[in-house]
């Protein structure tokens, strides 16, 4: 089967009262490949990721993960295959990093991470935005899921930590994970992604390998 090892969002429509956000969007993220979604504010990038992660329902639309079709949210089934990093932090502020990591399935891996060792005894509320983001990304990659959806992993993060996150993303893609990410920092996105989509006019347009040129052509960059 052609798409047996891919996460596909097919014919996705999504509207909120009096505003249509997506109209028949199609997107495909293959395993072992880093796929980027680029678009203006409010174009529907995060909405697409939320639909893929079952956080909201498309009306209508279908998510296909490795050939299995999901019409409903089906969270338990979806999260066997995917890990999802939301745009806003998903960590409880009043818990220590040590306690958080201890409760995770692959805590041994995370305990060995030098950056996480530095913040081990702090509470989540005491972490900087970048440290929190790195912790979330490291947690997601420790879950052993086939597809990882990252919604703005670089926003508010210092360049050295962005480099660490990019290295992590590349390593995981080499290990066969499919990464679907979106961010406004197009320089980093262009550097790391193998494949890209631009959301324009409520649709997903497949970008050629040289993102920057094509984004300029489509009026996304000056």
């Amino acid at each position: 089967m052609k798409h047996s090892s891919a996460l596909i969002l097919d014919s996705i429509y999504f509207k909120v009262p009096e505003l249509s956000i997506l109209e028949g969007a199609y997107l495909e993220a293959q395993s072992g490949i880093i796929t980027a979604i680029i678009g203006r504010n409010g174009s529907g990038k995060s909405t697409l990721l939320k639909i893929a992660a079952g956080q909201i329902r498309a009306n209508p639309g279908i998510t296909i993960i490795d050939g299995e079709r999901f019409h409903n949210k089906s969270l338990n089934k979806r999260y066997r295959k995917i890990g999802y990093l939301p745009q806003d932090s998903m960590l409880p502020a009043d818990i220590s990093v040590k306690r958080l990591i201890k409760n995770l399935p692959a805590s041994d891996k995370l305990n060995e991470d030098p950056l996480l060792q530095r913040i081990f005894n702090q509470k989540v509320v005491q972490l900087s935005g970048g440290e929190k983001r790195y912790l979330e990304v490291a947690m997601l990659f420790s879950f052993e899921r086939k597809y990882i959806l990252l919604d703005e992993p670089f926003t508010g993060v210092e360049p050295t930590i962005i480099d660490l996150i990019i290295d992590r993303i590349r390593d995981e893609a080499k290990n066969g994970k499919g990464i679907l990410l979106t961010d406004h920092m197009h320089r980093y996105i262009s550097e790391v992604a193998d494949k890209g989509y631009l959301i324009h006019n409520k649709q997903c347009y497949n970008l050629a390998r040289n993102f920057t040129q094509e984004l300029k052509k489509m009026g996304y960059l000056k």
Partner: protein
Amino acid sequence: MIVYLAQKYIIYSTVFFVGLVIFPLGFFDNTEYVIVRGFFFGGIFGGVYTFYDFKKRNLWPLYDNLRYPKYLILFTCFIGFQSLYFLIKPFI
């Protein structure tokens, strides 16, 4: 993380329980009835409040990522909270 959710549920439900018991005790004679009702409605309101509190704080995606069934955990917490009645029954 299940313990964290249970802790929050117990705290919120206890607050509702206290509110639902202390106020009506001034009006009703039947203490046992008021306490049983306090546990039941305290458990329900606590569950609803916990759900919306976690939603507001964007914590549910973490539980989804961990593949923890949130509704089942909340229901189990509710049942556990009801069983606390049997602990305090001898003192009523």
